[in-house]
């Protein structure tokens, strides 16, 4: 029976096992499963260990045959292949000899496996390093802000770290974007309780209880990183458009803070103009970075650079009472929800209009568009970038970058 015979060989068994492992990894990595349960994705993904071991071992049975090295020395392939009829022992083209080829898959996978092993070792080493939690802030809408310090931690704006909390789970590392600027002496993350692990983290840090916790009973955290992301390119464009939806504003918070410090220190960057769009469903969400935007606004206007940052905040859902309240305070100088001078807009942005305005204002520049948020909006923005980029090489060009994990 062919099946049993082939499955009894090393190649057959390993082939089946590793293909199965790959399929399991693929089905548990779809966007839906990742969002529904990150843990399932994380644990199933570690089957890659079986995959790589199986791949390296797959050729051990030497079923694929190739010409032996001795035969290759005597029988020159390029010369002899056209003289097929003259292959005989004793002539310049003796009959070629074949034997099982040794496994060579390991040559391909050695490099990446070694690099990944190094990464894991570094992660383990960083796990041993001490992380001091300096401040814990509980924001509305279930967002927890953690300010931490770690020795020799250097970051660039827009990067992310992996965090592990051994008291919740000793095997899971979850990625979070850094929300502090490199110039500050601490680094911070904003974590929204959106799943099992994040919910447990918020609970363990006492976000739900009214009483603040003593610093000695805070759980230990391990931080691995920082790792890069596309957002570090924001300062390399002359004009940047940053669009954030909900908690997706966290990477841009780091950028805005860094901008603040750069204004203070008069550092020179290529960036001339930044547009920031923040779309939120809940007015409480603005509280996460309201003071940041406020201080940035006043600071820039003090320095005479009020035109540098143009930000627009959009609130997409409200009820009757809120609407009545907003209408009542419509004519005031500062916005009733955020307290900023720039008024909040209601409803979703009209991207056609926005992109058209930006394209008109900066006719021949390269504009970087950076987005963090849901996929549907990402598709819309990509379409806008294509639509409003000019066909002329010297005209305006929008370059799109997506930050969503």
């Amino acid at each position: 029976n062919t099946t049993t015979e082939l499955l009894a060989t090393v190649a057959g068994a390993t082939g089946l096992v590793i293909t199965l492992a790959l399929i399991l990894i693929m089905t548990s990595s779809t966007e839906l499963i990742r969002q529904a349960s990150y843990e399932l994705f994380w644990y199933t993904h570690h089957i890659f260990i079986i995959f790589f071991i199986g791949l390296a071992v797959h050729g051990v049975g030497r079923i694929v045959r190739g010409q032996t090295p001795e035969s290759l020395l005597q029988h020159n392939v390029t010369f002899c292949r056209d003289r097929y009829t003259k292959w005989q022992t004793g002539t310049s083209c003796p009959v070629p000899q074949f034997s099982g080829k040794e496994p060579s898959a390991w040559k391909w996978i050695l490099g990446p496996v070694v690099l990944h092993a190094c990464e894991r070792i570094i992660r383990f080493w960083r796990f041993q390093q001490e992380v001091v939690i300096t401040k814990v802030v509980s924001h509305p809408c279930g967002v927890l802000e953690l300010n931490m310090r770690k020795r020799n931690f250097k970051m660039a704006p827009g990067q992310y770290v992996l965090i592990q909390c051994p008291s919740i789970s000793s095997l899971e590392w979850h990625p979070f974007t850094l929300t502090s600027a490199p110039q500050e002496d601490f680094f911070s993350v904003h974590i929204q309780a959106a799943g099992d692990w994040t919910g447990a983290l918020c609970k363990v840090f006492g976000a739900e209880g009214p009483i603040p916790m003593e610093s000695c009973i805070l759980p230990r955290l391990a931080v691995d990183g920082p790792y890069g992301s596309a957002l570090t390119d924001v300062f390399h464009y002359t004009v940047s458009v940053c669009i954030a939806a909900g908690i997706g504003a966290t990477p841009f918070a780091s950028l805005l803070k860094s901008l603040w410090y750069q204004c203070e220190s008069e550092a020179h960057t290529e960036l001339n103009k930044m547009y920031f769009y923040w779309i939120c469903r809940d007015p409480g969400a603005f509280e996460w970075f309201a003071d940041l935007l406020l201080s940035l606004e006043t600071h820039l206007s003090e320095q005479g650079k009020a035109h540098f940052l143009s930000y627009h905040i959009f609130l997409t859902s409200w009820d009757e009472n809120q609407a009545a309240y907003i209408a009542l305070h419509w004519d005031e100088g500062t916005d009733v929800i955020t307290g900023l001078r720039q008024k909040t807009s209601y409803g979703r942005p009209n991207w056609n209009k926005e992109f058209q305005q930006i394209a008109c204002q900066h006719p021949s520049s390269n504009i970087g568009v950076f987005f963090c948020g849901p996929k549907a909006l990402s598709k819309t923005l990509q379409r806008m970038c294509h639509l409003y980029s000019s066909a002329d090489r010297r005209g305006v060009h929008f370059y799109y970058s997506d930050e969503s994990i």
Partner: protein
Amino acid sequence: MGQIEWAMWANEQALASGLILITGGIVATAGLFTQWYFGAYSIAAGVFVCLLEYPRGKRKKGSTMERCGQKHMTKVVKMLGPLSRNYYVRAFLHLGLSVPAGFLLATILGTACLFIASTIYLLAAFRGEQWIPIESKPKERPQVGTTIKQPPSNPPPRPPAEARKKPSEAEAEEGAAGGPTGGPQVNPVPVTDEVV
């Protein structure tokens, strides 16, 4: 992993298995291997599994993204009633479907994948999950009469909306309080018309 609905992963795995069964079956039938009829069976089983698993079930918590065009298959799968709702049935069905494909090397991968999908469905069934079809809610037609609110029954100055009682509540309170808000305005200070 408290929040995971195992049926979601089982569904993805079963859909992938169906596609693999079809592919393996095509290879076996086209190559006319020995016992190629198992290949033909595998194509049929793969198509059946794909059609059964294409409509995504509704999650208990939160919203579910439909696969595109799944409305038509949802209707068909719904007609099977408890056979499609119950995950025990699906688990054993997949187990049964996977066995014949195991006789041929070209389709044995499909067998293994479908067997794993069947195990995950068994786990989902143990946890009491069920397949609920995603149905679009019928659009509520706004009835013309109810959107017109009652005009205010008292002249200005009027108290704000929270203090103003609705007419239906005022009727209920008529006997109890006989309050001033339902009926005509009762002025605290007598008002006289000074026109001579």
